[in-house]
């Protein structure tokens, strides 16, 4: 198995050699071809390091908007106050975020700081039984659509989603629906 890379996170700026605002081709020239990619009307996403690192680009301009890391072993250190964010308990991380940004933008169970330029949320670590951050996303201003835009998109989605019976037939799963 290939050794994991380790990165230094600079909140709102980048991860390792990859800087927010870089062109995708420039990133690929540094990181190589991604393991896999996925795009929709929001972003073009490239996955690296066993998909523990994701880079989101603007789908049209292919400019880097955000980087998400979901494995603390990938992090060398965080430049922001030298805190290793993914190694903290969720309680400590959340307190740290609130101290630095009392006006967190909360979407369901995801917490966004437009001051720190990070979004994150809790997960239960199965081994320790302690809540930790599921991942850390560092992003540029404008990466997060407004709540109104998101709500309207959800409303449109619910109206347009095909019936389970039709979809199950297409998938060969009609026996279950």
């Amino acid at each position: 198995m290939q050794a994991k890379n380790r990165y230094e996170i600079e909140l709102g700026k980048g991860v390792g050699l990859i800087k927010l605002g870089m062109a995708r081709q420039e990133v690929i020239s540094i990181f190589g071809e991604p393991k896999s990619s996925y795009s929709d009307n929001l972003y073009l996403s490239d996955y690296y390091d066993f998909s523990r690192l994701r880079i989101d680009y603007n789908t049209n301009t292919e400019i880097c908007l955000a980087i998400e890391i979901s494995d603390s072993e990938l992090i060398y250190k965080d430049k922001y106050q030298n805190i290793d964010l993914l190694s903290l308990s969720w309680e400590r991380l959340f307190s740290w975020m609130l101290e630095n940004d009392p006006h967190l933008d909360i979407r369901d169970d995801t917490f966004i700081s437009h001051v720190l330029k990070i979004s994150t949320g809790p997960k239960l670590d199965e081994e320790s039984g302690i809540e930790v951050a599921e991942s850390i996303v560092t992003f540029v201003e404008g990466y997060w659509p407004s709540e109104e835009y998101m709500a309207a998109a959800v409303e449109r989605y619910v109206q347009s989603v095909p019936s389970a019976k039709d979809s199950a037939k297409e998938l060969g799963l009609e026996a279950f629906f």
Partner: protein
Amino acid sequence: MRVAIPDADLVQWVNNGLVNAPPGIKIIEAKLGGTHGEVRANTVGGQVHHMPADSVNLLPTAQGSAIWMYTEHHKETASNGRGPRAVRYRANQKSLIDHGKTDEAIIEDIKDVNRVAPGLYDISIRQMLKKYRRSQ
């Protein structure tokens, strides 16, 4: 001779016909799909993927429908992560459930798993759906 192997990787490969079981050994079909609790209890490593996501499915974590996945595949599912796409996807799923469309929510998750790894988790998905139907 029947041998239960708690290594989800190996069982997944055998169940998908990617490798043959050793002569004289019968690999019992592992619980790679069902409730989160039973799938986790029957597997080692990897990650157990809730369908729909744990945060929106209204059930205790252990009782939610789920399948075992390779960690890197799980990371690529639409509901995983803390960016806008994952938040919107989970909001979509929650809204479907709130509108009484839980079947549609599960189907959308199945499509998403197939997008990430086409066909690889078919057996696990069928195991999960059998359990899901029995619980209705």
